[in-house]
């Protein structure tokens, strides 16, 4: 971030032209929102814009560009700063790859059923807003674009506004977005300090004092964390992300949360000055709690898209832990370990944007084919939608951090960083890092359970509803979009070493040092964390080993068992009942986990209503779960506000004299305070 020269690099110029193309697409779609044939052009324009912007940001990332200029717009005196550095370029790559694939998916959407004139104008506007956040060079531009991003995505969330649930989701989202932005506003206010210069370069030049920086940190974690979905501010994600059309859900969950992380990195690692070790504590604590809690929610939920949204909460937890580790290492002067943690964080941002987009697009395909998102109405889709099922499996394996896919690379790097924890000079951090590591391990195991459950219930077994039985494969553009993302997941897993060497300059600026031993591995594709002797992940070798051992196992099993393919009834737990209800269900799968964690974390209670012998009514089994985060942090304040406003309602019916009296007493009290104070 040093040595910023205000010239316009060619990468920035190309990037801006791509961003301009988004604006053109948005305006075009808004003008012709009644012409279906014209609207068909919106997604292709978005694809071109995303490709141009992604290419420019990749070039900027590789060249470690520092470029920017100032426009005479925005706030007076300060103006509007536009800047592009490696950090912006990295996140711009995430955003625009996400937009690229979701726009391809959007091309295949059914214009009459899935889309309306309400979606197309706002999709490019949303992409535009996210890009603007990344290239903003001052607090005003940042917050303005941030709000634009919230508002455009809010419009997309309520695009199916006839559903009362969606309207509720939109309401909660809007409230959370407003509170989050207000909090960020205070954070930037603290950063600008008494000088009141909101340009990032000016803020960077004058770091705030210890008290103010603590407040700024709190404001940034609250503001950006609520947008990213950190617990306990996550409650809007499982409402709003599923309510949007699926390709927008993919953007919101896979990409917008990363823009929030960008904001956090920008403030904490760039603008806030030299880190102090205790800054890491909120990140580590919140991150570890979020990771486990998000997955416990996910593993108990019954709605495909909600499960994915909760899983996003978990991944944000992982990213927070990575940020916390990077901060702690950097503050302790262990720059090599900081670089490992930061590399893990950045790669996880990129990887999560890929596999979460893939999973949401797959969920969208299922939703389109069956019209259902609830686990109790799905099943057996692997026979009806084999392509979607295959790609979804790739996504599920990636998110469960299984090699050779990309999720493993970033989580492996993060565990390497956690294992370096004993080097911390502060005892609190030394004590915390293994605890956080254990929580992460639990989260990883729960993630695998969650996605085994989701894949098994949705794609395997027999259909649980007529809609699922009559499902059909999704359209070609959707398949292309998912294939692209699945390919990225595989490539990201195989070439983690290459990707890490591409972000070395970025690691140098954020962590204070590049990765120490890149390129020292036995093959050019090896990923080396600290040194080639003890921490090395050689993805291609492991992939070949997995392929060979897997093939051998399959051959061996077929050799030992009978080679004949037998067709028989599906296993039904011994009950020869043709009803699909006799299958293992989503609730049955999660029951053990619910019994272990549910009673403490969710206050779960099970009641069995068993009829007396002779009574022929059906027995009922009911499970009750409490969402404490919602009840305590959302419902309770909302109730308090309502109650207070009801009380204050009486103030509307006072006499004129009483109003005057109130004003007079307020004045007198203020005068008294002034008289005593000064």
């Amino acid at each position, binding site marked *: 971030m040093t040595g910023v020269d205000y010239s316009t690099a060619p990468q920035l110029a190309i990037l801006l032209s791509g961003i301009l193309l988004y604006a053109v697409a948005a305006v075009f779609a808004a003008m012709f929102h009644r012409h279906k044939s014209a609207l068909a052009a919106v997604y292709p324009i978005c694809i071109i814009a995303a490709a141009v912007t992604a290419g420019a940001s990749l070039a900027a990332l590789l060249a470690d560009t520092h470029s920017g200029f100032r426009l005479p717009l925005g706030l007076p005196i300060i103006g509007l700063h536009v800047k592009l550095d490696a950090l912006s370029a990295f996140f711009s790559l995430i955003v625009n790859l996400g937009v690229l694939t979701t726009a391809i998916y959007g091309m295949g959407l059914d214009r009459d059923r899935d889309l309306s004139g309400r979606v197309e104008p706002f999709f490019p506007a949303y992409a535009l807003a996210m890009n603007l956040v990344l290239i903003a060079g001052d607090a005003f531009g940042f917050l303005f674009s941030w709000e634009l991003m919230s508002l455009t995505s809010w419009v997309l969330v309520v695009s199916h506004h006839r559903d009362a649930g969606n309207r509720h989701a939109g309401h909660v989202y809007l409230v959370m977005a407003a509170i989050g932005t207000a909090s960020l506003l205070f954070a930037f206010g603290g950063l600008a300090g008494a000088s009141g210069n909101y340009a990032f370069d000016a803020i960077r030049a004058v770091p705030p004092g210890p008290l103010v920086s603590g407040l700024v940190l709190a404001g940034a974690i609250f503001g950006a964390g609520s947008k990213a979905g950190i617990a306990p501010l996550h409650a809007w994600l499982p409402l709003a992300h599923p309510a949007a059309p699926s390709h927008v859900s993919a953007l919101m969950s896979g990409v917008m949360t990363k823009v929030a992380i960008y904001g956090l990195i920008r403030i904490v690692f760039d603008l806030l000055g030299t880190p102090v070790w205790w800054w890491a504590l909120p990140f580590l604590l919140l991150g570890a709690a979020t990771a486990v809690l998000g997955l416990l929610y996910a593993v108990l939920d019954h709605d495909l898209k909600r499960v994915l949204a909760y899983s996003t909460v978990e991944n944000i937890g992982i990213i927070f832990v990575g940020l916390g580790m990077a901060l702690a290492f950097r503050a302790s002067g262990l720059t090599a370990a900081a670089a490992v943690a930061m590399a893990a964080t950045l790669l996880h941002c990129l990887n999560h944007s890929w596999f979460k987009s893939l999973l949401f697009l797959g969920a969208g395909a299922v939703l389109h084919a069956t019209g259902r998102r609830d686990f109790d109405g799905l099943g057996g889709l692997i026979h009806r939608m084999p392509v979607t099922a295959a790609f979804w499996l790739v996504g599920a394996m990636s998110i469960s951090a299984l090699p050779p896919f990309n999720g493993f690379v970033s989580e492996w790097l993060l565990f390497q960083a956690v294992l370096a924890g004993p080097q911390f000079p502060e005892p609190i951090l030394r004590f915390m890092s293994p605890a956080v590591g254990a929580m992460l391990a639990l989260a990883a195991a729960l993630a695998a359970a969650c996605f085994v459950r989701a894949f098994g219930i949705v794609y395997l077994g027999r259909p649980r509803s007529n809609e699922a039985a009559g499902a059909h494969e999704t359209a070609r553009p959707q398949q292309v979009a998912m294939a692209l993302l699945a390919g990225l997941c595989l490539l990201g897993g195989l070439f983690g070493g290459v990707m890490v060497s591409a972000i070395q300059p970025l690691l140098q600026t954020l962590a204070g040092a590049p990765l120490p031993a890149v390129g020292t591995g036995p093959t050019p594709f090896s990923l080396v964390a600290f040194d080639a002797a003890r921490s090395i992940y050689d993805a291609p070798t492991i992939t070949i080993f997995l392929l060979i051992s897997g093939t051998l196992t399959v051959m061996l099993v077929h050799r030992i068992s009978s080679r004949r393919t037998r067709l028989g009834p599906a296993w039904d737990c011994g009950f020869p009942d043709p009803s699909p209800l006799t299958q293992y269900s989503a609730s049955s799968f999660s029951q053990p986990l619910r019994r272990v964690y549910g009673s403490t974390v969710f206050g779960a209670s099970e009641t069995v209503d068993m009829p007396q012998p002779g009574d022929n009514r059906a027995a009922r089994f009911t499970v009750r779960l409490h969402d404490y985060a919602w009840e305590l942090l959302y419902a309770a304040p909302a109730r308090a506000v309502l109650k207070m406003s009801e009380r204050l309602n009486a103030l509307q019916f006072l006499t*004129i004299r009483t109003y*005057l009296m109130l004003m*007079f007493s307020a004045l*007198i009290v203020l*005068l008294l305070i002034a008289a005593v104070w*000064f």
Partner: protein
Amino acid sequence: MNHAYDVSHLLAGLMIVASFALLYQDRIFAVLNIFAAQAILLSMAVGWEAWTQQRPHLFITAALALGLKGIIIPVALHKMIVRLGVHRDIDQVVGVGKTLLIGLALTSLSLMLVLKVTATAESFTREGLALALAIILLGFLMMITRRNAITQIVGFMSLENGLILAATGARGMPLVVEVSVAFSVLIALFVFAVFVFRIRERFDSVDIEALEDVRGDTK
């Protein structure tokens, strides 16, 4: 130069006495007369300022205060009361004794506050400001301790007197603002007049409690 301060303090002090008299008085015509006296005192105080500070434009303010508040408004209100035939005594919500005690407390509060806060300013501004604040607070007190709409008008305008006294004392409030203040008083008079007529038309009374009945308010 000292007698300049003495005279302006005397006039401001007399205005406060008038404010207390307004609080004490329970007959409408007497209230109007005292208000007119206060406005004349105000115009004298402003005129004195204009003379001693060599700021001739303040004479306009003094003339406005004298003409508008000293003569036209009291006479208009006087005629209105005669024409409406309303009761000539005033319902007081708080008893006179208590009101005067509260008024004393308010006056001492404003003296304490202003003298303390403006310890570094020059002495005339400080004391003039303290007296003006006391007049403002007493006007406000008059508005909330009386039920009669006409005394509310008078209380409001007495408050306005305090504002103008403060403005002229504070060295160089531009004339534009003074004119606008005068006009706002005039507009307030219109509003209140309409208001009074409306009340009477409907309820044959200018007791503002009647307004509260029609809104269905609790008292």
